[in-house]
């Protein structure tokens, strides 16, 4: 049969599908950083959630403690961040139920990568960091892109103020461009904590999407604990 004779109407050209399409993404701003030490790891996030020039909420946390005491820090689309946390937490708990032990940080890190990649065709618009203690008791921080590319790092920052903070971490945590510093030295908790607070107070001055409160999670062999600091509310 002649194809042109079919009653089925011609489909619209492909281009018509893509144009004028509603975007399912929003950027809710906010910043997250992680610093890994010898026997601890730190995650710091501000709690502001914005939508353009509007502040939705001054306290909408985007760093989450998982049941194995690892911390997931996020930035990007808040809806995706929250769902990513729920999915990861669910899968961490499933691991616990199946294996009768907590999932290790490196395993969870790979699981997070797989979870992100499973949404390759409609990515989670999230730039996560995952921080926990590895098998040797050392602090482990992992950074990801939105489709699950991962890398273990010692100092990383994502989010709206990442351009302000990442160079600072490169210099102060990874000792880049310092003449006499030992590039392999790891920061003490006190140093890391001060750097995190300084990074955020400075970033808050220049980035309108970062502010309100700072939540700092410190994970070590004993578990995760949280410290709060106030940032500017402007």
């Amino acid at each position: 049969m002649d194809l042109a004779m079919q009653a089925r109407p011609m489909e619209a050209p492909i281009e018509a599908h893509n144009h004028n399409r509603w975007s399912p993404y929003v950027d809710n701003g906010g910043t997250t950083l992680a610093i890994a030490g010898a026997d601890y790891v730190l995650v710091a996030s501000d709690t502001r959630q914005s939508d353009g020039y509007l502040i939705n909420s001054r306290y909408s946390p985007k760093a989450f403690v998982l049941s194995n005491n690892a911390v997931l820090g996020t930035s990007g689309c808040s809806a995706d961040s929250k769902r990513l946390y729920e999915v990861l937490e669910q899968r961490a708990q499933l691991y616990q139920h199946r294996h009768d032990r907590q999932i290790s940080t490196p395993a969870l890190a790979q699981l997070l990568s797989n979870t992100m990649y499973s949404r390759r065709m409609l990515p989670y618009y999230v730039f996560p960091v995952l921080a926990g203690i590895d098998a040797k008791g050392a602090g482990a921080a992992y950074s990801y892109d939105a489709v699950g590319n991962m890398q273990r790092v010692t100092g990383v920052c994502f989010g709206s103020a990442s351009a302000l903070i990442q160079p600072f971490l490169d210099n102060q945590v990874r000792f880049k461009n310092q003449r006499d510093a030992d590039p392999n030295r790891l920061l003490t908790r006190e140093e890391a904590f001060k750097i995190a607070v300084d990074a955020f107070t400075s970033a808050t001055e220049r980035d309108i999407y970062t502010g309100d409160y700072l939540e700092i999670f410190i994970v070590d062999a004993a578990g995760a604990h949280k410290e709060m600091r106030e940032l500017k509310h402007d």
Partner: protein
Amino acid sequence: MDPVSLELPHTLRGPQATAGYGPTTRTTQPIVTGTSVVAFKYKDGIMMAADCLASYGSLARFRNENRLMKVNETTVLGVSGDMGDFQHMKHKLEDVMTHEYDMDDGQALGTKSVYKCLSNIMYGRRTNINPLWNSFIVGGVDGGERVLGYVDLYGTTYMADSLATGFGKHLAVPILRRRVEGRADEITEEEAVAIMDDCMRVLLYRDCRAFNKLRRAKVTAQGVEISEPYSLATNWSYAESIVGYGV
């Protein structure tokens, strides 16, 4: 005659006839819409307000619509955006509440659970790129705790002591941040009504899709109360003294 070459009568062509073929279609704009919802916490619970208008573009089409829904004994839902999508959501929530009733286990679905349920539906729809074109505010008292949450067509959620949707985000939130934030525990019902009236009045003056017939809901430990429609006292004589753009 070859049956496949038959032309369809013109009444059977167009969207109805081709719905099964061609590109899949999605909502790309809301049609009949409601404007802002304003809500905040006060001493005894939460208060919420929305007007009774469902607009068709700039036409004030349906002037007696209720945009506040009592979900259960402890929860109200305020809606802005597409009213058709809202009716769909309302239907879904009624089904959820019927299911809860049928369980007959002496447990009521709390405000937080209603909020989570609603958020999951909204996030699911946006992830299928077929959003419900709404912003919702869920308010209630859950186990003695006041709960106020926002969710929209992107599945974005957040909770705060004061919330608004639509134009209310620009016009009511600054008022609420000044008058409610940090002192939600002190505000009496009387003051709450005054704050709410002020917010709704500002919206009425400046939002062309707002309407001077509105309902106010409150949720306290005693339950949900949604008022009959009422109007605000306004004074348009100021308008004469406004000089500027277009005058």
